[in-house]
């Protein structure tokens, strides 16, 4: 219990540090929201092809899904690697209950970032894009929560496998960008060849996006969805399956990573970084 309590305070403190850091603030928060605002201004007014729904409404659901996805599967793993390289993980390993507190803290920081970015994206959509508030708040809430829960353990597992922050950024960012295109978060997935639609459905980003579109878009948009349905039970099932997979995978990998941390490994990594 103590580790959990300290971890929550730690997560909040880390979140506040991000907000106080101008570079981080511009790079993550303002950058993402600013890009979204620009997209809204550029093409938000146009309707999605063959429907009467604006691009702005469609993009809002997509950007929200991508925010959750990128925070969980890119920001979180890279934070883990950076903490490992700087020695934060080892320092926490050296204190009683440090690792559970650290992991709780990292999860809380990611949740705070997702919550803040999501709130800002919705506010920007309403104020800049003239998007109507979500038609189904309940669906918005559970899809956001389940989508977050699905990617956080998975992100932690990926972070354990990345060799370094330098190479890790490329290793994570490239597949993320590749997944962005076919996942239907930027434009309707039915515009893609069928094989790509199947690939998209294997990953949580598509299902997260589908659930969020169900919360924002009218049923008239179902013509642009696979099977002409929001398939919310499937959204819950697939995101739930990814959650279980992450939960099964992450603890073992985290234990392995923390067990391998020592002063000499830290020194070796820092020497390698200096030499590179």
């Amino acid at each position: 219990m103590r580790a959990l309590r300290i971890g929550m305070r730690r997560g909040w403190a880390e979140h506040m540090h991000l907000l106080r850091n101008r570079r981080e603030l511009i790079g993550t928060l303002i950058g993402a929201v600013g890009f979204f605002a620009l997209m809204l201004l550029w093409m938000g007014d146009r309707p999605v092809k063959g429907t009467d729904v604006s691009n702005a409404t469609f993009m809002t659901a997509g950007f929200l899904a991508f925010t959750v996805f990128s925070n969980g599967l890119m920001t979180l793993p890279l934070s883990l690697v950076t903490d490992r390289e700087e020695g934060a993980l080892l320092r926490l390993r050296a204190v009683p209950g440090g690792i559970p507190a650290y992991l709780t803290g990292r999860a809380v920081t990611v949740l705070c970032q997702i919550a803040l970015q999501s709130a800002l994206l919705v506010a920007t959509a309403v104020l800049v894009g003239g998007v109507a508030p979500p038609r189904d708040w309940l669906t918005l809430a559970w899809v956001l929560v389940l989508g977050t829960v699905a990617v956080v353990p998975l992100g932690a597992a990926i972070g354990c496998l990345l060799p370094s922050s330098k190479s890790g950024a490329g290793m994570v960012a490239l597949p993320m960008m590749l997944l962005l295109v076919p996942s239907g978060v930027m434009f309707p997935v039915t515009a893609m060849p069928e094989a790509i639609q199947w690939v998209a459905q294997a990953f949580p980003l598509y299902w997260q996006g589908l659930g969020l579109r169900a919360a924002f878009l009218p049923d008239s948009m179902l013509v642009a969805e696979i099977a002409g349905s929001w398939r919310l039970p499937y959204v819950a099932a697939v995101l739930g399956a990814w959650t279980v997979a992450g939960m099964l995978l992450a603890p073992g990998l985290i234990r392995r990573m923390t067990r391998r941390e020592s002063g000499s490994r830290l020194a070796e990594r820092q020497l390698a970084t200096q030499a590179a």
Partner: protein
Amino acid sequence: MSTAVSVRGLRMRYGAADVLRGVDLEIRRGEIFTLLGPNGAGKTTTIEILEGFRRRSAGEVSVLGTDPEKGGDDWRARLGIVLQNWRDHTRWGVRELVVHLSRFYDAPRDPGELLASVGLTEQAGQQVGRLSGGQRRRLDVALGIIGRPELLFLDEPTTGFDPQARHEFHLLLTRLAADDGMTVVLTTHDLAEAEKLAHRTAILVGGRIAVCGTPGELAREVQAQSSVRWIEDGRERVLSTPDPSRSAWELHRRFDGPVPGLEIRRPSLEESYLELIGRAA
């Protein structure tokens, strides 16, 4: 005096390489103990096994009565660890980090008093990333002792310290060992520091403890040469000998009384160390 650390037949093998080949070691409670040795001798491996950061290949290890491989949070709370490669928590405030890490312990030191004891009161509000190298090390030491550990591991603690900061750090460490009864295990390349601080020193060579004891015991064990100086026929004479007491007694007999300008200088820890390493090479 009871035992803080007990090591029997410790072996460590990485692939085909034997890094530790049967280390035997006993560290008493309340003493400052230094582990010396050339690079690759196995110091870091030994310390990491004691800290519970590394699994051993064979042997028995007990740290504060517990096998480090099985040590849980209660055991971990009794240890303090200060490494030399930490560059973490750079965005945190100095005091904020000290307060945060103090929460992991039942009876931590007061953060304000702790920062004062390592001379960081003025930097309490600064970001950790803005501290100088020496200040950063002092913060690391503060964080290492925040939980009032019974046993403190220090890896090259004064690297980057200026002479004044080094002197103050030595006073702090001596005080902690004397007042709080804390056991300190120190690894350093600074032999003068080891000689100044340590009650006992072990020298690890080729994966084994070559010698262990006080600086005097080490010198005797290694049979490093002492120097005996005296004045005879108006000139200074110097004799190098492993047994200076015997030489002084023989001089006393030869002069049939006080020996003019007699001076005996026993070998320093550095000389004993170099003698031992030179022999092993």
